[in-house]
């Protein structure tokens, strides 16, 4: 079956035009196999996990923990107990900030972020810094939105406790050299957290090769359901960290005044988890493995290259981000003269083309370029050069309305 045909949502018309979905950095569409996995859990195996002594609970638990093993392998984790299910990247980062951050950070400690970060890798650290007295510092970016690593030796001090950076920028598509950053961070004894929300859907991630200590990702951007995702962390770290939330599932023994905790990863999974979401995320990982990351990466690179060429031919368009395709993933953030990104998006929407307009939860990136917003087209494995052609036609219509830049 053709790849695109496996995504039911892509078969619809919007405003009388076949849908062109280019908002994949926000969320991806879901293949039938993922939808089937969600339905199969609720239709056949619906039960709570880890506690019922009955057939359905056994099945649910097996599928739920089986998905954990699958996803751990998917990101190169050596041990599935090191993978904590979360609602997504944001919760994974908040988990580290609340648990590890509140427990270990103190006055004068430093957290090194980058100005490329999504707000979800900034605000949790602002919250923890304001409560612990820790200080935030930033790796700045250059005119192409690439982190300036020349500054790293100065920025990394004996007070640096954590470096928290994105693997791939959601706003510009910049691919950051995580291994290089991690190697330097290790020299001052800092831990490294990676926001992998934009990477796991698009390339083979191996947390061990990256040399990081925490890796956060979301299920919904990789063909999985919303509300699914995870945090990988080294076993020794997870074992030393206090629980994030209290409740059922995460305890060993509860007494009147104190409790003891379950083993990892369950210590961090209070309450009934997103069972269906985890199982369906496993189906998403199977789907992506079947297509293969070599094919996905090559396809997205071709689309990116084709789209950048056509945008360049068109003229009057400013594209932000790295020009070297080796340093960039399938995200194109751009502005067009007088036409505000919001207006661009409305005009494209009237032609059935979905893009994103705004600051992309990355206001520091916008400030860096002295703009308030960009229009952003982002690709995934099911997009085609036809989609790019439709985008270009839509942008020609924007030019007609707003006039040449």
């Amino acid at each position: 079956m053709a790849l695109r045909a496996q995504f039911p949502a892509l078969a619809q018309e919007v405003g009388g035009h076949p849908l062109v979905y280019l908002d994949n950095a926000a969320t991806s569409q879901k293949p039938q196999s993922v939808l089937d996995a969600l339905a199969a859990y609720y239709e056949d195996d619906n039960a709570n996990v880890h506690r019922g002594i009955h057939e359905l609970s056994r099945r649910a638990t097996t599928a739920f923990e089986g998905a954990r093993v699958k996803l751990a392998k998917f990101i190169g984790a050596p041990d599935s107990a090191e993978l904590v299910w979360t609602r997504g990247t944001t919760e994974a980062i908040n988990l580290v900030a609340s648990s590890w951050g509140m427990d270990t950070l103190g006055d004068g400690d430093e957290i090194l972020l980058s100005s490329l970060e999504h707000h979800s890798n900034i605000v949790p650290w602002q919250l923890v810094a304001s409560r612990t007295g820790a200080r935030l510092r930033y790796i700045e970016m250059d005119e192409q939105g690439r982190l300036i690593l020349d500054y790293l030796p100065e920025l990394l001090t004996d007070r640096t406790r954590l470096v928290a950076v994105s693997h791939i920028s959601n706003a510009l598509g910049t691919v950051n050299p995580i291994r290089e950053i991690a190697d330097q961070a290790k020299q001052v004894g800092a831990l490294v957290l990676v926001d992998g929300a934009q990477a796991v859907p698009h390339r083979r991630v191996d947390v061990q090769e990256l040399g990081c200590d925490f890796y956060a990702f979301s299920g919904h951007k990789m063909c999985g359901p919303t509300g699914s995702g995870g945090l990988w962390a080294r076993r020794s770290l997870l074992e030393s960290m206090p629980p994030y939330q209290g409740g059922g599932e995460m305890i060993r023994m509860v007494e009147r005044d104190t409790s003891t905790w379950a083993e990892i990863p369950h210590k961090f999974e209070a309450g009934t988890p997103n069972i269906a979401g985890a199982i369906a995320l496993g189906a998403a990982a199977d789907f992506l493995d079947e297509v293969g990351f070599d094919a996905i990466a090559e396809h997205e690179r071709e689309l990116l290259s084709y789209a950048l060429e056509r945008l360049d031919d068109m003229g009057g368009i400013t594209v932000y981000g790295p020009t070297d395709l080796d340093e960039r993933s399938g995200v194109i953030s751009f502005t067009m003269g007088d036409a505000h990104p919001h207006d661009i998006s409305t005009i494209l929407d009237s032609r059935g083309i979905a893009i994103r307009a705004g600051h992309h939860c990355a206001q520091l990136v916008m400030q860096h370029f002295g703009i308030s917003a960009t229009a952003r087209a982002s690709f995934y494995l099911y997009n085609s050069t036809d989609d790019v052609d439709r985008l270009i036609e839509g942008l020609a219509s924007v030019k007609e309305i707003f006039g040449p830049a």
Partner: protein
Amino acid sequence: MVEVPLTSLYQELILEHYRHPRNKGGLANHTVEAHVANPVCGDEVKIQILLDGGRIEEIAFDGQGCSISQASASMMTALVKETERSEAIRLADVFTDMMHDGEDASPDKSLGDLRALQGVSKFPVRIRCALLAFDALRNALGEGLQVDSVGEPDPVGGTVHSDRSEGETTH
């Protein structure tokens, strides 16, 4: 989605106000001001008013954002300049009603150029763009922020603004 022609949204008069805004800038002498922002899209409108008793003697706006939000601000300032405060608030109510009533209602003549924005009512996600300037106007005239109480940016919470819209959390 209903197919709506874009011509009802991007009328020439709107684009003309967007390209050549009236009353744009600041007032050296003003008695009240307000600053509103839409955190979803980053649109901002700041207005300053010189009130003489109940009368709007001078009004100016500054801001950034989409054609709808900025044209609306330009048209609004042109309309309420040299009117009574009560009339300005009435016009804000009439305009807000037009945004919510859709294209069937016949636009109130007293809205002047702002009638060109009626087509926005057919684009629900853009209505708040058109209303942004009126939020600023109401804030400045009503429970509006006085000049000396307009806040400094708060390190976590952002600048003082009225949140009209849902937050965004996606990557």
